[in-house]
Structures are given as C-alpha cells and as structure tokens.
C-alpha cells in the first residue's frame, strides 16, 4: 500500500489494514473531510480489504465523523471487504450507543481482538 497520508497512518499486519488517526480531536470539519477522503483511498486501493480503524488516542468524535465512518462502511461492503472498529474510549462509545451505531459497526475492545479471526 503506497502513499503517505496527512491525517491517518496505515499499517498492514497479517493481511489486515490498520488505520489510525494522527489527531486526538476529530472535530474540525475540514480535517474530518480530509480524514474521510484518505480512508476511502485506502479502501479503494485495497481489493477485498480487511480494515481495522484504531481509535486509540481519539478523545472526541463529532457526528460528522460518524457520517464518514458510515460512508466508509458502505465502501468497504461494496468492495466485498470487512470493517472493524477498535479501542474506542468509553465516552465515545456513548456517542455510538446514543446514535445506535453500536448496532451497525463491529466494535472490538482493542486492535489485537480486532485482528483475531478476520
């Protein structure tokens, strides 16, 4: 997987692509737009992607960012891939619960768990 990204880092481990965020506060609308575009590029450049989005270190997440995750999920599924989210801190999990997006995404406690049995 080539390319360097402004807003995310990408690691490939055992055939699984792990995306991490460079910033802890995913609130700024411009940044969120760029984060979304970069994640979509990862999916589009990886056939049948097995994707883990690692939220370790993320302190805030706006509903606009949730929208980007939903678009990401749609793109992964359209590409016959799989998506898991990992290491979401309790306050942000509350965002997922309030919006019931915890019923839509596969969420794991940490990256190690997310990598299991992909």
């Amino acid at each position, binding site marked *: 997987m080539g390319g360097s990204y402004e807003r995310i880092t990408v690691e490939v481990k055992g055939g699984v692509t792990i995306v991490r965020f460079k910033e802890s506060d995913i*609130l*700024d*609308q*411009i940044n969120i737009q760029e984060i979304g575009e970069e994640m979509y590029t990862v999916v589009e450049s990886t056939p049948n992607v097995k994707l883990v989005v690692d939220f370790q270190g993320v*302190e*805030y997440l*706006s*509903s*606009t960012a*949730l*929208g*980007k995750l*939903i*678009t990401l999920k*749609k793109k992964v599924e359209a590409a016959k891939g799989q998506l898991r989210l990992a290491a979401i801190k309790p*306050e942000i999990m*509350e*965002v997922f619960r*309030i*919006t*019931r*997006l915890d*019923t*839509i995404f596969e969420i794991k406690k940490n990256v190690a768990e997310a990598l299991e049995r992909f």
Partner: protein
Amino acid sequence: MTEPLNEATGSFCIRELEEIERARMWLKNALDAHQYGRHDTFAIRTAFEEAVTNAITHGNRGDPAKRVTVELAVNDAKVEMVITDEGPGFDAGHVEDPTTRENIMRESGRGVMLMRGFMDTVRFNDTGNRVHLVKHRSGHLRP
C-alpha cells in the same frame, strides 16, 4: 440561595467552520479552570460542536455572509451555551429519528440527538434558529 461562584462568560461571532476554534478553545480552558470532570467535559464539548456545526452548516446553509453567535457561560454549578444562527430556522419538534431502520445508515442527522443525549436542557426557540443548552455539573470538583 448561594450564588454560583466564579462565572466566566464568552461571546463569539462565527461565520465559517474555520472560526470555531477560538470558541472551542475558550470553552475547553473554562471547563479546565472550573475543574469539570472528564465525562462532563466530553458531554459539553460534544454538544457544543454539534450545535455550532448545525448552526453554520444547516442553519445558515454554509453562507459566510451569515453569522452564528455563540454565548458561553461556565460557573462552578453549570454550563450554559446559547447558539443563534441567522437562518430561517426549522421545526425542532419534528426532527427525524436517525436510529430508525430507514435512517440509521444516513450520513447526517445526528446532531440534535447527541445534544439531547448529553445535555440536561436543550431548548430551541419557536423559529428554531436559537438553541439554549444547559449542563449541570454531575460530580464534585475534580481533584
């Protein structure tokens, strides 16, 4: 009745998303100075972002000629935020439920739900272009 001590107030005029940062940092610093705990800080900052983004993006339709006024008050007992846009407003009493089967995969429409989920009071004016948010401190002053 004891008067709440230590009130800090801030007022901001925002036209574009890039201008939110000043108000955001003011709020963060005021919450820290008043020793709000982690959960309250998360709730308040999240509701702030949702309200201001909604006002700019939906209320003012992203028009930089229109202003969003943000009034913030932080004291030891509670935080109050009033966000006003210059748009036509909306019917805040009939916001579509973003958790239904039809809506859950939509990419937007969760801002009001998050405000209501995290704040003690969310009150829109009749027009729907002003929202008043209140969060009472939920615990003791953090050590």
